[in-house]
């Protein structure tokens, strides 16, 4: 009996290390580096002949296609436990996404963790290259450890430069960008695109808006949008154009308009917005796109010491009418620019037809790429000024 007990005891003792030492995935938290932003540039001295000749990179014939830059904050500094740089940056050239990771691993003492990635930046040069664009987007879609909510940016500068910018706030670019994009009063003149939504838009209507980030005078700025189509960037929108595009998409709720009525500039602050798009085919087989936009707003600036008071229903009517004329025209022009110059369906007209006019869509879906640029657009922007402040 005793012998049996001893045997069981020995077995249990032998079994414990077998079970309790089995954690293959253990990484202590202080050994991790939480990457907050990754940037990709195209490798400039691009030796394509080498690439075409070889199926695979070898020791003698390295192929460089990307410059990959990653940044992560100095967590110890944030916690106040250590002095030093507020963030670290590692940059490397590589043939692929994964290769870049392996290269950096040779130089850095931390284990990289991309679960908390906040921003990804493509240089426009890279975004113009369909192959590279698709390679990286596929990685992001495929990986189980990349956050779909991360912000995607294109930049006219080099992504490396953007990430190396000193934000002046003792924080790294990734966290800075995240705060910038998610603050209470959102910037109205830059597109909003998280990775997941851009992928969905590209899948559904082959067109998406990606926010742009630029470096001006050593500071970062979010400005305008890049237009994505066919997995490349086909054009960019300026700040006002982006604002207007977002109004047409119904995403910009709070906007300030500066408008000239009776020779005086006044400012209308839009507080709410309802956008409705209707697309249909007329009898001659032409596609029409109609936008009906209903906005509400306040006059927040008029003219000091003037006999024409804003506190007057007739005057407010005039303001409304003027805005209807001016803004409707502006929005129509923007739609036509995107439609005719870039031929991108970012307003999802095709999707609308597919969902609400399936019979029409069945007829035209094969030739949609040719039909879309010829569609006629009409925008009816209705501003309703509700309040004028506390001054007559």
């Amino acid at each position: 009996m005793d012998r049996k007990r001893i045997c069981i005891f020995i077995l249990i003792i032998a079994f414990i290390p077998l079970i309790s030492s089995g954690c293959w995935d253990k990484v202590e938290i202080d050994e991790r580096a939480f990457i907050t932003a990754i940037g990709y540039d195209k490798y400039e001295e691009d030796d394509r002949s080498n690439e075409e000749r070889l199926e695979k990179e070898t020791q003698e014939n390295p192929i460089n296609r990307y410059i990959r830059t990653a940044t992560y904050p100095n967590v110890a500094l944030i916690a106040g436990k250590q002095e030093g740089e507020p963030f670290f940056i590692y940059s490397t050239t590589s043939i692929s996404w994964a290769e870049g990771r392996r290269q950096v691993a040779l130089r850095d003492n931390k284990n990289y963790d991309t679960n908390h990635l906040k921003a990804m930046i493509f240089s426009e040069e890279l975004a113009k290259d369909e192959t590279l664009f698709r390679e990286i987007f596929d990685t992001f879609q495929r990986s189980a450890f990349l956050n779909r909510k991360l912000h995607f940016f294109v930049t006219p500068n080099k992504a490396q430069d953007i990430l190396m910018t000193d934000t002046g706030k003792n924080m790294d670019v990734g966290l800075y960008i995240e705060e910038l994009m998610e603050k209470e009063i959102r910037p109205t003149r830059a597109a909003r695109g998280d990775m997941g939504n851009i992928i969905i838009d590209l899948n559904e209507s082959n067109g998406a808006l990606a926010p742009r980030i630029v470096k001006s005078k050593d500071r970062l700025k979010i400005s305008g949008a890049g237009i994505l189509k066919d997995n490349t960037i086909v054009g960019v929108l300026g700040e006002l154009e982006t604002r207007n595009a977002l109004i047409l998409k119904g995403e910009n709720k709070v906007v300030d308009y500066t408008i000239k009525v009776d020779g005086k500039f006044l400012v209308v602050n839009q507080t709410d917005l309802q956008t409705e798009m209707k697309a249909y085919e007329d009898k001659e087989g032409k596609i029409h796109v109609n936008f009906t936009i209903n906005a509400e707003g306040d006059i927040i600036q008029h003219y000091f010491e003037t006999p024409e008071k804003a506190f007057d229903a007739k005057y407010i009517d005039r303001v409304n009418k003027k805005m209807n004329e001016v803004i409707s025209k502006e929005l129509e022009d923007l739609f036509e620019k995107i439609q005719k110059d870039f031929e991108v369906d970012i307003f999802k007209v095709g999707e609308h037809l597919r969902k609400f006019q399936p019979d029409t869509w069945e007829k035209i879906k094969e030739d949609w790429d040719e039909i879309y640029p010829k569609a006629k657009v009409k925008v009816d922007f209705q501003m309703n000024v509700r309040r004028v402040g506390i001054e007559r």
Partner: protein
Amino acid sequence: MDRNNDMIVSNQLFSILVITVIGIGVLSLPRILATEAGPDSLILLLLSSIIFLIIALVTQRLIMKFPKQNIIEITNSVLFKPIGILVGLVYFIYIFILITLEVRAFGEITKNFLLLNTPIEVIIIIFLITTIYLVRSGIESIARMAVIILPLSIIPAIFISLVAIPDLDFTCFLPILRTPFADLIRALPKLFFSFIGFELILIWTFFVKDTENIKKTVISAVGFISLVYFIFTGITIARFGIAENKDLIWPVITLFRDVDIPGTLVENVEVVIMATWLLSIFMTIAISYFGAVFLLSRILKSKEHNYIPVILLPIIYVLSLVPDNIAEVYDYLDKFSIYVGTVFVIAIPVMLLFISFFTKKTKGGIRKNG
């Protein structure tokens, strides 16, 4: 070694049925629906739910004819004796193969999302050891465990999915009824993997104390399963759109990954949800495992069945590692549920019920004549 009296009540049967069916299938369900039916996904799901309810009611009818019997005894009474053993044996093999494939799918999901450096062999073996502990404890413990785990795994998952509501775009389900009806019908068998597990009711009713409530339980279980499927499919497709859903292997897990609860410091809540969801997969496999063990012990006519799960464990382990890759696992699962699943879920119960009408009549006739 009689730890319990081997009796469950119909409420426990409800939990067992629901948690057996909801498991791995739902994770890829929106992909199958989006691929097969496009915008008509929910209609296809509704159609398959209704058909499944009919099948469930047919099975229930069969059970009510032979209360407190399991599939072997039912077949024996309907037909003649050795057939029961044969049918029991094929059911055993069927459940057994299903377990091996599900164990592998479970291992792949865990390795993909949670333990990426741990070898899959270790994940599977530890999982199976845990499972046989529950299986050896008998039907009563399993039933209690099912009652505990059902809300624990489903409520957090649904709660997390509801957080995605502001981002939903229900126009994804337009235009309605544009898919040819023949295509919808043809797609139905592919949805069977999502409902597989229900046929085990042919075994569970043997243990049920209050037989008169079984019909109610069956209807509410199918209703509940369909409701959960509706919620997940509706939210997932409305969130990602049809095109994206076709590309995602487990759209529902991606949905868990996609949400972040506003205003919390906690990011990546999907790890918690995955962990609770694994509990439900664990129960799916444990319950099926018990079903297989029970059938085998009946076939072997052994009174003690506690040693059987231990013997089966190495076989399941080895078989689960047979498919070369994740694509092959799902390939096998698809084919298995379409061709084999259909036979065991629909054909055998319907046939038995049909023959039972026939044999009863002749038996009565003989009695009258004799």
